């Protein structure tokens, strides 16, 4: 038999054909597969704002001078503080913060301008509701920077000399420091993880539950055709989802896409294979669809928390960083952000690529071995 005939008559094709028909008719899965990219994107793109800005701020200005007003406007101009009103005394200030009307307060004492004029250190206070350290962190550092900047201006005016140091911060790759730029590429990774593990494992377990897997096993369909026919449709879905996120991310969140798309799609292959391997592995462990779903969620959790998707890995305790190194998503995120935001190529990305490929080969080999053509 010629190669072309063998290819044309491969048992992979009826499997693929059947899988696409089923996918088309399964409204729930279809909805999940197509709706998920949009929902994830909007959920994570909009909701996750690790940079907390625009804290509602009240001002207790006991100085009421040109200098104190200048300090207020410097603070407001950082964008970290939104002026919501002035308070008359400390009691009103406490009330404003306790009631949640404000989460920060700027206190300028009566002698503020006088001390500046006399060349003494003028004191001012920023009170921040720091119950949630993540939301107060950037406000605090913003306030300190603003005060330093204001001090430098005052010194320059006073001594009529240029400031001794002029430090300019240049935030590369994400100049406006928007969370979405960091998060949206990660959505692709999370989405592929969900599709390849949760959706794939439940699809395989469903065949076992319904008795059709048993029926398939007694047919002469080979293990490669059976598995490829089952997995390739999800692989294609994964690439479509990725494309949807890229397009929507570009349109809605204006994420930069400076790197090579071709490289991105090529390096996505090992990640998809690794994730499919995990999905296949879950399908060999789980006895029913509910179990498959539970195991998948159990796998999702470290992926969301420890891969660097939302929380920076460098800030994690060392054991958590090690666990992160065992997740294919960790490497894929480096690749995603590297290509999309920094526009770097394979020369800089060969390490995560190598790790990802090794993972893909290992996990897939293990799960293929476990996925035997018997029903034991």
């Amino acid at each position: 038999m010629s190669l072309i005939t063998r290819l044309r008559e491969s048992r992979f094709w009826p499997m693929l054909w059947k899988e696409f028909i089923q996918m088309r008719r399964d409204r729930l899965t279809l909805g999940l597969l197509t709706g998920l990219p949009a929902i994830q994107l909007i959920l994570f793109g909009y909701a996750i704002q690790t940079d907390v800005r625009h804290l509602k701020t009240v001002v207790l200005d006991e100085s009421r001078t040109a200098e104190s007003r200048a300090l207020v406007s410097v603070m407001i101009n950082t964008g970290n503080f939104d002026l919501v009103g002035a308070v008359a005394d400390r009691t009103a200030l406490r009330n404003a913060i306790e009631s949640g009307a404000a989460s920060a307060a700027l206190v300028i004492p009566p002698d503020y301008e006088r001390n500046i004029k006399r060349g003494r250190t003028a004191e001012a206070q920023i009170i921040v509701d720091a119950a949630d350290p993540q939301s107060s962190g950037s406000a605090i550092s913003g306030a300190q920077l603003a005060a330093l900047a204001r001090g430098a201006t005052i010194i320059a005016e006073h001594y009529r000399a240029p400031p001794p140091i002029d430090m300019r911060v240049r935030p590369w790759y994400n100049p406006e420091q928007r969370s979405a730029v960091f998060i949206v590429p990660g959505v692709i990774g999370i989405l592929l993880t969900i599709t390849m593990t949760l959706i794939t494992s439940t699809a395989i377990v469903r065949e076992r539950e319904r008795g059709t897997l048993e029926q398939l096993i007694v047919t002469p369909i080979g293990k490669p055709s059976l598995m490829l026919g089952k997995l390739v449709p999800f692989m294609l879905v994964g690439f479509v989802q990725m494309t949807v996120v890229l397009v929507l991310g570009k349109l809605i969140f204006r994420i930069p896409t400076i790197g090579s798309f071709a490289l991105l799609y090529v390096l996505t292959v090992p990640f998809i294979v690794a994730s499919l391997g995990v999905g296949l592995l879950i399908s060999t462990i789980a006895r029913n669809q509910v179990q498959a779903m539970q195991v998948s969620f159990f796998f999702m959790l470290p992926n969301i928390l420890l891969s660097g998707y939302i929380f920076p890995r460098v800030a994690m305790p060392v054991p958590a960083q090690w666990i992160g190194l065992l997740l294919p998503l960790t490497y894929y995120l480096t690749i995603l952000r590297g290509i999309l935001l920094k526009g770097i190529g394979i020369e800089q990305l060969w390490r995560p690529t190598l790790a990802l490929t090794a993972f893909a080969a290992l996990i897939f080999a293990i799960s293929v071995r476990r996925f035997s053509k018997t029903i034991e």
Partner: protein
Amino acid sequence: MTAGGAPAGPPAGPPAGPPADAVVIEGLRKVFHSGLVAVDHLDLTIHRGEVFGLLGPNGSGKTTTIRMLCGLLTPTAGHASVVGHDVAREPEFIRTKIGYMSQRYGLYDDLTVYENLRFYATVYGLHGRARVERLDKHMEAIGLTSRRDQLAGTLSGGWKQRLALACATAHEPEMLFLDEPTAGVDPAARRAFWTSIYQLAQGGTTILVTTHYMDEAERCQRLAFLSRGHLIGLGTVKEILEHFHQPTIEDVFIELQERDEGAAA
């Protein structure tokens, strides 16, 4: 118990063909991971073209035996050959020669009647013109032409059973395994099903069937009784009745079941 007014009797004699046996089982044994011995030292031979009934109470090892013969389970010990090939060494070759239908039917509820048939026919290696002709023939034979585009999940039990049989025999196998194929369908559908079975047998197909219905058991040419993994009775209906000194196969079955429960207690 009588044959329930069945129109057709067992077909006469095996057809001409290679004088080999369709199934040869020697010392077959299956121990599950749990330690359960499902089948123990089973010896059995099924002749080509025979309609062979495998009987026994639940848990007697009928399904496990069929699954080993189909390559769904690996035997722990012993040998079995199907259509002249060893199940452990050549499972993939055997799969091209056999059909298998379980009580779960193995149909895709979200595919139509025609799509199910087409899928299995293609998986069994039918292509192009041959496939179209074969599918049309089968659709006609099972009387599902008018339901061609109906989703299999919306069919009644009897129609599902017919479709399942058509899917299992789309490639015209030499050997057909039927594991409780008539569980849960009405008497009319069961009768129609057995008519199809005899047609297949007359066409030369060897059939191994398990059942709980005694009227069906009496339609088989030869029977084997299993109890807790052992073979405890083998022969034609007449021979079995004489051996156990019982008036009907149902009485034999009940006696065996009681003996089995007594031994297990």
